[in-house]
């Protein structure tokens, strides 16, 4: 049997790297329903999980899949699912339940072009707002967007760690292109991989409060069967977990759900800067489109243009402060994404009208080429 951490050098797809990252993070439950282009994650987990003592279940649909993931989390396991747009839409109701019940879990969305069934075998980045706002009500989630197979491996581990640390669903937003692209993935020895677990309750079991936050705003979480009386509901609840229909209870619950994310932005938000020191024009991108921007930045510099690149690794919560700070000193932003302007809107919001913000995007189905980015730079910021 292969170990959970497959130490060594591999040539694997982004989807396979995602599954290996989950296993390395200690995930022992996958509940899913196959969908192109995320099926390979499920396939790989179904091969690997039984060998490391885990459980793989193919449920009857995506609604049941995410429900099983929440159930496994409350049984004390690190759990996940992987899907694409149509399945992601079906999962939205229970994603809200995960946010409300502060259930740690990881959901991977290997994006394909939509809306509806769209282009199953062709990539896009059109679910970036859906992941933020797809379920009803105000809530906070964390979403990451890796840009290579190697990074998918690491960010899947990070997604599990953040979900455990903050008792929240965490999303790994990849796409068909990196999901199906093969690259070198180096998996380190198990003892070099940092894995975290949800804080466990201490003290008297009969006085335990399921939603009483600790110092970082996150409440410890027992597993079912450990002797704590737990009541888990999607109704507005008090710290005990009991439904309370009042403005005060709603205020207290929502404040906790928002604060544990918004109060820890420095810990959650990850970005990567490329040649921003003297940049006048800043590209902003994530996921597969970040690779377009890396090539475009290199080519633009070769032409003497002062172009830099801010790569968003954490998409939600949004890197508002970083964009605000750049807006004080640069000439403008160009957001590059395979949609018709989603994160672009966030960049505009954060720049607060100080500098122009442009978009290089399209309807989905293929990658954006560096030439398109360079053309936009020249058009929007003509040399004097």
């Amino acid at each position, binding site marked *: 049997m292969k170990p959970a951490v497959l130490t060594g050098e*591999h040539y694997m797809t982004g989807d396979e790297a995602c599954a290996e990252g989950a296993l390395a993070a200690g995930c022992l439950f996958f509940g899913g329903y196959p969908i192109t282009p995320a099926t390979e994650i499920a396939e790989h987990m179904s091969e690997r999980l039984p060998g490391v003592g885990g459980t793989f279940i193919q449920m009857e649909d995506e609604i049941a899949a995410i429900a099983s993931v929440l159930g496994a989390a409350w049984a004390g396991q690190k759990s996940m699912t992987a899907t694409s747009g149509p399945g992601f839409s079906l999962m939205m109701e229970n994603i809200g339940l995960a946010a409300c019940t502060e259930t740690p879990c990881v959901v991977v969305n290997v994006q394909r072009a939509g809306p509806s069934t769209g282009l199953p075998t062709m990539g896009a980045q059109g679910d970036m707002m859906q992941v933020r706002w797809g379920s009803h009500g105000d809530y906070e989630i964390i979403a990451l967007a890796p840009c290579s197979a190697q990074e998918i491996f690491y960010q899947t581990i990070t997604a599990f760690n953040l979900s455990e640390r903050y008792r929240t669903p965490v999303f790994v937003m990849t796409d068909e*292109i990196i999901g199906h692209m*093969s690259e070198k993935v180096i998996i380190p020895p198990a003892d070099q991989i940092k894995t975290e677990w949800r804080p466990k309750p201490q003290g008297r079991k009969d006085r335990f409060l399921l939603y009483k936050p600790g110092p970082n705003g996150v409440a410890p979480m027992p597993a079912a069967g450990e002797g704590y009386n737990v009541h888990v509901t999607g109704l507005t609840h008090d710290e005990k977990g009991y439904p309370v229909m009042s403005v005060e209870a709603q205020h207290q619950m929502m404040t906790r759900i928002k604060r544990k994310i918004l109060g820890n932005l420095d810990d959650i938000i990850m970005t990567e800067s490329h040649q921003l020191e003297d940049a006048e024009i800043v590209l902003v991108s994530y996921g597969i489109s970040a690779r377009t921007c890396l090539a475009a930045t290199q080519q633009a510099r070769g032409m003497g243009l002062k172009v830099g690149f801010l790569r968003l690794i954490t998409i939600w919560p949004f890197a508002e402060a970083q964009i605000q700070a750049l807006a004080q000193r640069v000439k403008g932003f160009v957001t590059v994404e395979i949609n018709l302007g989603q994160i672009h809107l966030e960049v505009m919001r954060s720049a607060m009208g100080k500098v122009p913000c442009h978009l290089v995007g399209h309807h989905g189905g293929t990658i954006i080429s560096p030439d398109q980015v360079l053309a936009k730079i020249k058009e929007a910021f003509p040399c004097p």
Partner: protein
Amino acid sequence: MYKQITITGFGGQGVVLAGKILGQAAAIEDKLESTLVQSYGPESRGGACSAQVTIADGPIYFPYIQNPDILVCMSQSGYDKQYPTIKKEGVLVIDQDLVKPVDEREHFAIPCTRFAEELGNKMMANIIMIGFFTAITGVVTQEAARNTVQGSVPKGTEQKNLKAFDRGWEFAQATLKGRRHKAAGQVGVVA
């Protein structure tokens, strides 16, 4: 070094596996960097499909190939679609029984599907092509390609597939020998 290789053919010919073997040979055995992207339609057999492999000694940002340095065609439709994209100084490699070139451009040709049938299994045409390709282009080493073939094919078929690889390799040696005035008998006329 920065080589962009496009392999085209029908779904079912092992085009994507050929791309995966080349990419893996480069990335894992030869310690280079490599990306493989594939395009395919909803059908699993018979439709046009292609594999795009980039091999470099530094980071690869953009994995898609607009103008390949090396174009390998295992079907006429793949050739018709991709031939206009090949770089001016690029190398064209074809299965000569399946592709009829439209012009006099110099190219390397092997009847790999016929050879595979002679070896008893049409499915091995892609492995013969890898052997041929490796010897002609030198973008991956013989040892790397051969080891990766061995590790990538179904258990129990390793010896047959290695024989197929060697068949392609040897045919390339004969081809290169015939062009001694160009390649001076060396392995790898483009690398």
